[in-house]
């Protein structure tokens, strides 16, 4: 039923598409994690400006489709002098979008830690920096890992939206093959399997990391 010749014929394009998806997601997600951590840090600093600003950022980037964000920046950007390449718009767009989700995951992880611990740490004479590094961070990491991994998988899949701004990632390649070969089964089977494989690898890596970082919680 599946025409393997079709896949063989487009093998190079498909592999290039997979590589582009991996590159874009890895770059966008790493950048998004750093940005999410920074956002979380800014929110923790508090103050009359930063907290509402943080909430506005999260509402804006989580509350609108990535497709709309990328479209406006890529096709609208040049009007205000922002002439980034499609790849750069895609990478930064994915990072800004992911950061909103990551920051909220860090916030939830932080809020689950009892306040008394921070007070005890202060009483023990730890500086705020030390408190974060020794007391908060290991616990946050342990709590946040599972949702971070889940979000990473979602973002890898969302990177398919980059096709609308001409980034030749996997979905773009598959749809082009579908248009040219008038067949949907093969290109979409490739899409399903490739994304699923990436998701399984990410989840397995996440599970290993989780075991590593939650060791101290076992008794």
């Amino acid at each position, binding site marked *: 039923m599946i025409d393997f010749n079709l896949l063989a014929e487009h093998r190079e394009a498909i592999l290039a598409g997979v590589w582009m998806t991996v590159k874009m997601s890895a770059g966008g997600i790493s950048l998004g994690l750093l940005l999410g951590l920074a956002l979380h840090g800014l929110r923790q600093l508090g103050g009359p400006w930063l907290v509402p600003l943080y909430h506005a950022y999260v509402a804006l980037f989580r509350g609108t489709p990535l497709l709309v964000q990328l479209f406006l920046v890529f096709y609208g950007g040049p009007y205000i002098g922002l*002439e980034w390449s499609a790849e750069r718009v895609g990478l930064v767009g994915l990072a800004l979008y992911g950061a909103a989700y990551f920051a909220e995951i860090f916030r939830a992880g932080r809020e689950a830690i009892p306040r008394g611990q921070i007070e005890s740490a202060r009483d023990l004479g730890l500086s705020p920096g030390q408190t974060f590094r020794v007391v908060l961070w290991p616990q946050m990491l342990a709590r946040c890992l599972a949702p971070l991994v889940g979000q990473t998988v979602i973002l890898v899949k969302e990177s398919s939206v980059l096709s*609308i701004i*001409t980034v030749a990632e996997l979905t773009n390649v598959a749809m082009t093959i579908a*248009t040219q070969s*008038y067949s*949907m089964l093969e290109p979409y089977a490739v899409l399903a399997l490739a994304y699923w494989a990436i998701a399984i690898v990410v989840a397995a890596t996440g599970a290993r990391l989780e075991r590593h970082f939650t060791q101290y919680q076992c008794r």
Partner: protein
Amino acid sequence: MKALRSLFAPLLLGALLPLHAATAHADLLADIKQRGEIVIATEARYAPFEMLENGKIVGYGKDILDEIMKELPGVTLKQLDVPFQGILPGLSSQRFDFVATSLTITQARTESFAFTVPFATASVAVLKRKGDERIASAGDLVGKVVGSQSGAPQIEVLKAYENEVLKPQHGAGVKEIKAFMDYNEAYAALASRRVDAVVQSLPNLAPLVKERADVFEIVQPPFGPATYYAWAGRKDADSASLVQFFSDGIARLNQSGKLAELQRKWFGFEMPVPADQVPAPAN
């Protein structure tokens, strides 16, 4: 297959009425008359051929379709608006009975699908930003970034032109061909200076430059070979009578002058097309 069907069908169909079961057809046209419904796919983002107005599909193509559907009394038209990437693959997988969306007649497509006689020319022209003096004719595309739709035949026309005219005469081709998922994105990219020009069929460009005369301009005349727009069905024996039915309908409208009248209505000009046969594809 049978076992799967008997397992899943009651589960899923209990609450939801099926559109139609994809059983083996002896004759699709007879089958359509019998079930009283025809499922047609259209990509309604291709003004002025097919577009949406107040949630309904309208346009030159829709007017032709309505005229022809008069010949099928008692059959309801179920017209689905499907993204272009799903149109032909969906036809192959029997999701639709017929495709009434403007398709350029190409060599590759005639190998897999049966075309009707054409109803419009699809000759390709260059679209540029208004007042861009670097491009005065198609020959000036040398060294430029040109946009089009991914998988569109207009790209093939441009590539052929590049190999047969640009490279021999000017020693170089275009700088880059950017394929967008949709022509509307290509227009947006042209307006925002991401590409220097867009290649698209002339009739599609007419309403665009009319609506946004402040932004776009057509570089006349069209370049490349004469190509035509038509509709298509599956190439199997079951579909033959259905494709013939639509083809005859278009030919009748062409001969009676109705087609020319609709062309004036939607494009503002007439474009004579062959009524007696499907023209041989140029590429």
